[in-house]
């Protein structure tokens, strides 16, 4: 199998840039090409990620930003719903040998969209789940309830995730929301959707994310620091929330696939850093368990131990994660960009203390994580 590397990355991210989508997509694409020293003509093809309802009211999103992402007269294509899908597709395009370089672009301009839940309610079917108010937040609140009940995880432990991640975000110039919050402040921040408090829920952000993938030979020409894609796994859960086991889910399945491909047998030991998708604070704890970083039900203990802090042995979301920055569609791909920066030692002020050889990146969409995608990347 061909080896595929992430050669360069770029991001435009934050609350609201006042720029238009068409131009922002161009700027992030231009930036990653300039970093790689490639002209548009030299790029093999483009895979983008976007979702129509998260797209300023413009349908068939990739028709709009086609030329912005450098796709004129190229075989560009697009993945909807989860930006990690674009990474996967681009990876396969290189594996076949048809392309040596593929540009991956994830695009979401939260500032133009209605509230995330005005949109996520449209994931719910119109007959049963939508009329009763189901959306991503209400689904997560029920999942949190079950999680706390089942394992005795405390609200304080969940709040610690916010305290840690928004604190980490203070050092990340691309973060949307940041701050020094105590767990008491998090718990007192307003009861948005019990047991979720306001600060436990991710904001609505802009995120234009780009990376250039290349086959091994080409990658070494472009950068002295290629970051290899070592494994990828994905799994989808059943649809109706009531049909699912919200604490088992499909993340273990997705992780197992990615680890198998990467040859990882003991994730807790072999992984140096995790960037995961936690639009709701408690999910970081649950996802850590399901990624095999601690035992079942031990997510609360894991965060309490300090191990997942930026200066801990296994930093989780040193960028501030999705709680800090939530470009709904491109949030998964943004995890890959952040992990790449960490592996290269280019994360600046939020660079973790120890060298990162292997990182896990995770994307999740749908109610209570109906779909999970996991990528293992490393030196």
């Amino acid at each position, binding site marked *: 199998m061909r080896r595929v590397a992430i050669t360069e990355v770029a991001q435009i991210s934050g609350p609201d*840039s*006042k*720029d*238009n*989508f*068409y*131009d*922002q997509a*161009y700027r992030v*694409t*231009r930036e990653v*090409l300039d970093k790689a020293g490639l*002209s*548009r003509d030299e790029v093999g093809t483009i895979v983008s990620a976007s979702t129509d*309802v998260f797209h*300023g*009211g*413009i349908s068939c999103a990739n028709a709009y930003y086609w*030329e*912005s992402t*450098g796709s*004129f*007269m190229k075989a560009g294509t697009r993945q909807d719903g989860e930006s990690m899908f674009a990474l996967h597709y681009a990876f396969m395009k290189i594996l076949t040998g048809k392309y040596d370089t593929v540009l991956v672009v994830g695009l979401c*301009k939260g*500032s*133009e*969209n*209605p509230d995330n839940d*005005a*949109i996520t309610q*449209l994931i719910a079917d*119109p*007959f049963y789940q939508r009329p009763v108010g189901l959306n991503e937040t209400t689904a997560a609140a029920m999942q949190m309830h079950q999680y706390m009940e089942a394992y005795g995880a405390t609200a304080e432990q969940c709040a610690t995730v916010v305290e840690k991640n928004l604190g980490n975000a203070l050092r990340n110039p691309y973060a949307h929301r940041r701050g020094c919050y105590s767990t008491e402040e998090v718990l007192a921040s307003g009861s948005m959707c019990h047991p979720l408090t306001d600060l436990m829920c991710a904001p609505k952000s802009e995120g234009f994310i780009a990376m250039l993938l290349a086959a091994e030979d080409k990658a070494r020409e472009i950068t002295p620091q290629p970051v290899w894609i070592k494994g990828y796994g994905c799994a989808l859960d059943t649809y109706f929330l009531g049909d699912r086991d919200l604490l088992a889910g499909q993340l273990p399945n997705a992780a197992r696939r990615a680890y198998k491909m990467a040859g990882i047998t003991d994730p807790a030991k072999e992984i140096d850093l995790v960037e995961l998708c936690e639009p709701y604070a408690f999910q970081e704890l649950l996802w850590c368990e399901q990624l095999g970083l601690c035992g079942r039900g031990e997510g609360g203990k894991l965060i309490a131990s300090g191990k997942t802090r930026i200066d801990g042995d296994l930093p989780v979301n040193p960028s501030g994660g999705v709680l800090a920055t939530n470009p709904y569609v491109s949030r998964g791909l943004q995890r890959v960009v952040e992990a790449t920066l960490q592996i290269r030692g280019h994360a600046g002020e939020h660079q973790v203390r120890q060298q990162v050889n292997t990182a896990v990146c995770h994307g999740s969409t749908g109610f209570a994580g109906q779909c999970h995608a996991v990528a293992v990347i490393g030196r």
Partner: protein
Amino acid sequence: MSQAKEYRIFETEVWLPYRVAYGETWTRFFEGMKEQKLYGTQCRKCGRVLVPARSFCPRCFVDTSDWVEVSQTGNLQAFCYTNYRYYGQALDPPYVTALIRLDRTEVDFVHLIGGIDLTSVEAVSSRLAKGMRLHAVWEKVRQGHILDIKHFEPVE
């Protein structure tokens, strides 16, 4: 329990409000329209003048930094007579949409044709021909919207 012969239809509606940013380039373009001017940008690499103004050249993939005021007169490339209705339609039919190549630009500008009899396809076709000269007719009150140009009319 009786088995229904016809299955039910659930009538529902989805409506979402959006706030879409113009950004720097398009803000300037539409500000220009308020002043009854049409602006394009020129690509320094291929030399093409693009209108409406673009911040980058789609083909050369470089920034376009040169602003040019473009002609409000051009040649008709093609037109379309629309005379049907649909939900959310921006205009009241009938109307004629056209591709117009404004003088000294390298792309076609999409707008309406008016000032002619629109009551039938025949009436419209008899007045329009490829290559004919058209010029912009402006609204008196302008808001920085594409319809600040009321339509294009044949140059007499």
